[in-house]
């Protein structure tokens, strides 16, 4: 545990710390050896003035009155910092407090961080995402051509995409799919969440063939505008698997499946342990369908969710471990969110996952000004935006590497291995293995192609 020690050493030592005209003595000279404390030698001792009542006769121990502050050497104290072992902290602090008479105060020294983005204004815009994510891929010609990218969501509006992107956009209607009762034409859905997701994928992989799978379009009485049932997703996955299986395995093209959705509440599920449960049960039909589609050669990505501890979405109802069901499936890439400066957004769900503990896998950009799907001032936000950005990265890599060249499992390994470590060293439950790093991905692909050319 890190600590701040307030000390009152000899008066001449305090005077040397206060005097701006002399070199401040090092912490070791101010504090000397203190048993049980690893003194931080790099921290320059800081003088602290003593508060005193402003009026004669005031309570010398009260801070609830007018005060004056004395920096006189006989009044001031000095702060140093250090660390005690985390084991049995209470006993160690107690021993420290009585170890030396010149220690007059001990307080914790917590890690301070900026408050993460929780909502509100965008941080940067989609051109920042291009700069951070796309440019390296583009310089290698990795733009998603001949790769299909399925947006399983609320439907896509291509006119809106074209307006914001400044060039024509289209969906591949022949390979798209919709649930029974959804009547709009592919690519002609109202501008909403699905359009945002398509836009965010196109930022990275401009030449992909977009497949429109509006699973979250309500077609049932009483449902809200943006919700669906998991059974619709099962049917959508059967369609995608059939697309792949219509082609011999050795000729299968890349198919990337972006899923920026999930279940917010255990109240819509059987409890964990029940054989019909979804959230914690790899044998649920949808979780089996995910495994079967991945096995056929698809790269599947899921948003980690918006139930991060700092500022969870108001709909989050899981008391803990909110990355549930397929969002935590071992055969998908589970995507957390960071802003365009690389700082984790506070709503991004943290692991461990329920089907697979090491979730999320990676993080990438969200909360930027992009598609304007929710209005000109609203950011593309949520892990909903991060997931298609990551899907665009996968689609870009698939431009050159088919599933036969690099299996979906090895694709996930590539993205994890090249990610920029963030947060604590190594894997953590905030960022997974780190923030997607397209420069490192490109470098890995160059090494791979050199190796392949030699062998």
């Amino acid at each position: 545990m890190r600590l701040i020690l307030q000390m009152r050493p000899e008066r001449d030592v305090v005077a040397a710390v206060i005097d701006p005209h002399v070199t401040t003595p090092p912490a070791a000279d101010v504090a000397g050896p203190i048993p049980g404390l690893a003194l931080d030698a790099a921290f320059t001792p800081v003088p602290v003035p003593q508060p005193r009542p402003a009026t004669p006769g005031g309570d010398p121990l009260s801070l609830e009155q007018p005060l004056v502050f004395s920096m006189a050497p006989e009044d001031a104290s000095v702060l140093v910092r250090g660390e005690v072992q985390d084991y049995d902290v209470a006993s160690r602090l107690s021993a420290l407090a009585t170890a030396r008479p010149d220690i007059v105060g001990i307080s914790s020294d917590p890690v301070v961080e900026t408050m993460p983005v929780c909502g509100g204004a965008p941080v940067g815009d989609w051109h920042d995402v291009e700069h951070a994510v796309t440019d390296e891929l583009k310089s290698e010609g990795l733009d998603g051509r001949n790769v299909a990218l399925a947006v399983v969501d609320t439907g896509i509006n291509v006119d809106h995409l074209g307006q914001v992107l400044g060039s024509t956009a289209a969906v591949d209607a022949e390979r798209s799919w919709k649930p029974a009762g959804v009547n709009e034409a592919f690519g002609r859905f109202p501008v909403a969440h699905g359009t945002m997701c398509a836009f965010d994928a196109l930022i990275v992989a401009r030449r992909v063939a977009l497949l429109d799978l509006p699973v979250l379009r309500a077609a049932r009485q009483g449902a809200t505008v943006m919700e669906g049932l998991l059974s619709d997703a099962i049917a959508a996955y059967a369609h995608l698997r059939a697309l792949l299986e219509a082609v011999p395995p050795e000729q299968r093209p890349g198919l990337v499946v972006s899923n920026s959705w999930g279940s917010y509440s255990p109240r819509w599920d059987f409890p964990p342990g029940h054989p019909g449960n979804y959230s914690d049960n790899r044998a649920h039909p949808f979780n089996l369908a995910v495994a079967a589609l991945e096995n056929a050669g698809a790269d599947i990505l899921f948003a980690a969710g918006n139930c991060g501890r700092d500022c969870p979405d108001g709909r989050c109802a899981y008391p803990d471990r909110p990355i549930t069901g397929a969002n935590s499936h071992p055969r998908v890439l589970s995507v957390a969110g960071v802003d365009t400066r690389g700082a984790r957004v506070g709503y991004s769900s943290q692991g461990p996952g329920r089907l697979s503990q090491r979730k999320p896998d990676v993080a990438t950009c969200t909360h930027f000004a992009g598609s304007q799907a929710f209005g000109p001032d609203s950011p593309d936000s949520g892990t909903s935006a991060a997931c298609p950005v990551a899907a665009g990265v996968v689609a870009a890599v698939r431009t050159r590497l088919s599933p036969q060249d690099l299996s979906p499992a090895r694709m996930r390994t590539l993205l994890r291995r090249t990610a920029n470590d963030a947060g604590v060293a190594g894997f953590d439950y905030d960022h997974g293995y780190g923030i997607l790093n397209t420069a490192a991905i490109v470098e890995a692909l160059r090494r791979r192609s050199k190796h392949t050319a030699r062998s």
Partner: protein
Amino acid sequence: MAPGSRTALVTVTLPPGSTLQDAQRRLGLADDEVDAGYGLVSIDPARNLFALMVTEEAGSRIKGLPGTQGPYANPRIHPFGPARPDDECGDGDDDTTG
């Protein structure tokens, strides 16, 4: 199946290429007990596993038949965005099986 019927998601093992009619015959299900709009959906060809939606009553009746599993949860699914950290909970009803 009547509109608005409460449904159950079940799975059944059938030969490759099976149809909804094959599933109905195998499980003894009448036309008004299955969701024909949903149909018979292949989940995993390696396991010859299919899904279908049936009425809750039919789901209870076929439970335990050989090769049949379920009912499974059919939870509502929602987009993970836009970020709405200030929302109040708005779960709607508690329909577990859809």
